[in-house]
């Protein structure tokens, strides 16, 4: 298959996943509900003043991580549960399936962040001193989380248990992303110089790249018989 045909395949998978998700809305609802209620609970109980900026940064990524755990495994688990996975195997090249689902998870996380970030700044009264850094970190961090979460979802789809296993699997894989993202976000909130966060941004970028590459290579072995 030529590269452009392959990209069309991936785009078709993305479109289909978003369409199906939009019709059922199961994963998105769970994600949003979790994220919003976590923010509300913390704001309500601990209060924004009691938290240092570094803590707020950490909290943001904890919420995003667990939201991903709540919602992103559906991308593959649902295919196996409803037995549509075989039809997909017959029709689509494996890499296109992975990329399509990665993009779908990325879109889902981005949508959640559109809701969560304003709430984060509002409810937790966070101030951002360096917006470009914050946004860049959010983008790269989201990419890293989506990449790790997607390949782990493919793994979990083959297992017979569910949610708890997914989080256990994702944690070691996503830890580099979380640590770097929290560091860089804290730097953005406290107004630290770019140089301080540069190392973390480099790690985020390279790690995301490596996870996606490794996943693409490994996915075929996982997906086909």
């Amino acid at each position, binding site marked *: *298959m030529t590269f452009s045909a392959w990209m069309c395949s991936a785009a078709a998978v993305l479109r289909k996943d978003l369409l199906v998700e939009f019709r059922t809305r199961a994963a998105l609802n769970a994600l949003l509900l979790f994220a919003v209620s976590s923010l509300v609970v913390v704001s309500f109980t601990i209060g924004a003043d009691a938290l240092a900026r570094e803590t707020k940064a950490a909290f943001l990524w904890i919420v995003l991580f667990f939201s991903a755990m709540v919602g992103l495994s559906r991308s593959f688990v649902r295919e196996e549960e*409803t037995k549509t996975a075989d*039809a997909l195997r*017959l*029709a689509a090249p494996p890499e296109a399936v992975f990329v399509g689902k990665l993009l779908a998870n990325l879109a889902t996380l981005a949508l959640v962040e559109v809701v969560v970030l304003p709430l984060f700044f509002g409810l937790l009264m966070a101030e951002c001193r360096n917006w470009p850094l914050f946004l860049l970190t959010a983008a790269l961090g989201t990419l890293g989380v989506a990449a790790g979460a997607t390949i782990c979802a493919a793994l979990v789809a083959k297992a017979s248990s569910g949610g708890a296993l997914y989080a256990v699997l994702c944690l070691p894989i996503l830890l580099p992303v979380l640590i770097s993202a929290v560091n860089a976000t804290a730097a953005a909130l406290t107004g630290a110089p770019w140089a301080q966060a540069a190392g973390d941004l480099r790690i985020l970028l390279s790690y995301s790249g490596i996870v996606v590459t490794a996943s693409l290579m490994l996915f075929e072995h996982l997906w086909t*018989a």
Partner: protein
Amino acid sequence: MLWLRLANLSKSFDGTKVLDSVSLRVEQGTVLSISGRNGSGKTTLLRIIAGLLRPSGGSVECGEGDEPPWQPARLRRELGYVSPDLALYESLSARENLDFFARVRGCTRDPNELLDYVGLGGRGDEPIGSFSSGMRQRLKLAFALQASPRVLLLDEPGVTLDEAGREVVVRAVAEQRPRGVVLLASNDPEEVALGDDVLRLDV
């Protein structure tokens, strides 16, 4: 000229041998019926050829004339597979399903034409969650035929179909014959009779 060859194909599940050294060769224009009692491995055999299951031993090769055998990815593209195990996307309509698979496969065959062919013409816009099992089976047939496959694998194709539905199957098999090969697994004597030859998996 298309050929499909199985060489000593075996499959064991957790120690139980389901397929034991199955070998055969079919050439273009052949319809092969596969029969055997329940559990004799008909579905397993077709799943292995379709690339959905890895054999424990032996090989599946398909190719054209004197050219070297096709890569698995090529075989997957030239394959059409119908099976009771297969399912399509319940929350999408029939047309949306076919449209999706067309894009994913990179083929341009018009979904409406396919829907008419299998007799689902007027029902293209309903979500298939509301379809009867017979209608789902027709849609699966449309799915299999979509990419104009050279190798058509049918596992119990008529199982939920009415008279008209079975006629569609007969027509599809007849039209497929000059294009490539058909492997049809069934216990229904009428369906088995469609084949030029019968492979019994019992023995």
